[in-house]
């Protein structure tokens, strides 16, 4: 195999841009505004517009739905450098993702690392084609932070597992076709040692779903119940009772995403908003206590961004610091919570509106309430601090 040279990469960039310009419909280059702007696929898939369909099909044909997976799994065989260029060029044009999918972001990496070849060939191409909408089943009502304390049982019944229990925070479980789950397959051992990773078809008898309402209002979260659900043994991923390894692998991915690493949306400076919304006096915010709050917040926000950059740069040199994902998750979400607090404070009465009126969609208050979940979901701030203390600082138990 030849190595890609810089010249090749230059060509790849030019070609990519040309292809995108030609094939991405203009309406698919607008920022995503509502859920109908996202195509999630699935058994009951519906495109919300003709352009959405065209864009998905063009990308599927080009094998760029998951460009960096191998061709045999439906991927585009792109090298990391090429994939990077594609991402950059899509960002420049503002192209939407053709398919939104937990299958790509979460299940895929687990399958690639832990599944058998047969399983990979069965599930990965379906993910790429958007045939199956996957959701995730980790947390349980009594196992929140203590994920490994989960109790949903999968009992060995010769040719199948019998599942009983429930999962919570199963995002879009009311719309998904399949769920990937952590289940307890051994109750006689230490809790981390009796967990397995299982795929379950949501259409199996005994599966039911209840949507969860949040303090911010409607949400994509659900509670999912399993009542004597029979699951073929072939749906087990990885080794029996070693599902915790897979869970840890996936959680570290998830934390970085929640912490905001790699997020590209540009946030307005809080100080700009404060200048606009509150009184100024001789070129300063009249509310000098607010000036203090804004100064400190923007200092930390600005330096957190530098820190993401620095640690990514260090990563490239091969320095590994696994638990840093906990730092990102902790600090990033705490910052976002502070940002929302400042916004509601600065925003005045408009930001307190709950029921939309003709001038105001009441988004600010809902976003504010929703932000309170940031420091809880994906591992609470307390859990992240524990991880930092134990794994990075080696403090004793």
């Amino acid at each position, binding site marked *: 195999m030849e190595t890609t040279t810089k010249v090749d990469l230059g060509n790849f960039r030019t070609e990519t841009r040309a292809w995108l310009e030609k094939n991405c419909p203009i309406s698919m280059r607008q920022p995503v505004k509502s859920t109908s702007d996202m195509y999630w696929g699935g058994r009951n898939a519906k495109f919300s517009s003709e352009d959405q369909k065209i864009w998905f099909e063009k990308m599927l044909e080009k094998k760029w739905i998951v460009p960096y997976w191998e061709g045999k799994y439906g991927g585009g065989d792109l090298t990391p450098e090429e994939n990077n260029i594609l991402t950059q060029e899509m960002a420049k044009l503002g192209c939407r993702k053709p398919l939104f999918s937990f299958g790509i972001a979460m299940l895929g990496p687990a399958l690639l690392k832990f599944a058998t070849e047969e399983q990979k060939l069965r599930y990965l191409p379906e993910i790429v084609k958007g045939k199956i909408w996957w959701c995730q089943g980790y947390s349980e009502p009594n196992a929140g932070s203590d994920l490994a304390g989960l109790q949903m049982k999968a009992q060995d019944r010769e040719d199948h597992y019998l599942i009983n229990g429930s999962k919570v925070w199963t995002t879009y479980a009311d719309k998904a076709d399949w769920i990937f789950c952590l289940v307890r397959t051994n109750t006689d051992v230490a809790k981390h040692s009796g967990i397995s990773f299982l795929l379950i078809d949501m259409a199996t008898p005994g599966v039911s779903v209840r949507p969860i309402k949040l303090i911010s209002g409607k949400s994509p979260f659900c509670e999912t119940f399993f009542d004597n659900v029979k699951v073929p043994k072939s749906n087990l991923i990885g080794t029996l009772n070693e599902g915790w390894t897979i869970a840890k692998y996936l959680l570290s991915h998830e934390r970085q995403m929640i912490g905001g690493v790699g997020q590209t949306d540009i946030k307005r400076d809080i100080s700009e908003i404060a200048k606009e919304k509150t009184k100024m006096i001789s070129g300063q915010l009249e509310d000098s206590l607010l000036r203090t709050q804004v100064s400190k917040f923007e200092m930390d926000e600005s330096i957190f961004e530098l820190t993401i950059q620095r640690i990514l740069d260090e990563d490239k040199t091969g320095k590994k610091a696994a638990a840093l994902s906990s730092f990102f998750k902790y600090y990033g979400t705490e910052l976002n919570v502070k940002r929302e607090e400042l916004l509601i404070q600065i925003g005045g009465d408009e930001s307190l509106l709950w029921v939309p009126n003709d001038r105001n969609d009441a988004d600010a208050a809902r976003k504010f309430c929703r932000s309170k979940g940031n420091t809880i979901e994906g591992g*609470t701030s307390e859990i992240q601090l524990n991880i930092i203390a134990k794994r990075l600082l080696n403090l004793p138990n």
Partner: protein
Amino acid sequence: MALILTEEQNMLKEAAAEFLEANSPLESFRKLRDNNYKSFDPEVWKGFIEMGWTALTIPEKYGGLEFGYTGLGQILEETGKTLTKSPLISSILLSATAIRLSDNEFIKAKWLPKLMNGNTLMSFALDERSYFDPNTIESTAILSDDNFIINGAKNMVIDACNSDLIIVVANLNNSTSLFLVDTKSEGVEIKTDILMDAGSYSSVIFKNVTVPAKNQLNLKVKGEEMLKSIIEIGAIGLSCEMLGSVQAAFSQTMEYIKERQQFGTKIGSYQGLQHRAAKLFCEIELSKSVVIKALQVIDQKNENLSYYAHLAKAKLGEVLKLISNEAIQMHGGIGVTDDVNIGFYLKRARVIQRLLGDTNYHLSCIAKQKGF
């Protein structure tokens, strides 16, 4: 004066706690919300009146109990625990106080008994901007024969949608005056919004509204001074409700962390949470002190009213913000769902913090008083 409740005040407080727990527990707040954001439960409000709570601050001369604001404060504190919605703030804490401070005998004699008996509901219209700023009033009143003509636009008028009358703050001849306006007058337009706390707040537009001259609240007393006192007493009253919320959110959270198990132990046994809980406890102790002091200062007609009003609203704003956040964080995932009630305190907190000025506003006032 000792910073403790008298025996009578304590009895009142206990009666209030008992009544509210029986007739308007926290779950009632959810029911009103889910019933198309109903402003209050008339049956419960009837109970308030029967218990005499609307008469506590009304002088005996007008048929009231003249029991004092320290008493009213205990009721407000208890309603802060159960988040009971009622016209107590708009009609009694704000409007009845305004009329009590008025030197217009006609208004006092006519309306105080009605407010007290709950026959009349009133609102108090001060704000004109999207944040609290009592020093820039642009509404105007002009004397024309025997009437005032009022023009202006008010917002954040609590419960205006249910009110029979509105007390309006407006400029008359370059100084502040207060007027009693019938909501059915021509030129009054009320638009009501539901805010984060599920409460009703109105924008009210006054367009050439004609008000009889006898409806002016301030005759010889200065309108500026009256307004200042109403705001101060109002801020203290709100601080009482906030103190109730602070205590209730905290104790519900302590109950939760004593029961909730994770990693095989009760999460309340973790030192990380224990230290935070202990710090919250300290903040609550401080909150209690400033609120009782401020209430006593109203009843003593102490010259330091302004200072303690600022101090109370500033501190309670800070503490309620802190505790409403910690309560949710310590509840974990369940805390951000609508299945449990703890989030109600958060949503009420952010609105009540802002009413009559937030922590920054009041601290800044103190700084100005102290000249720094």
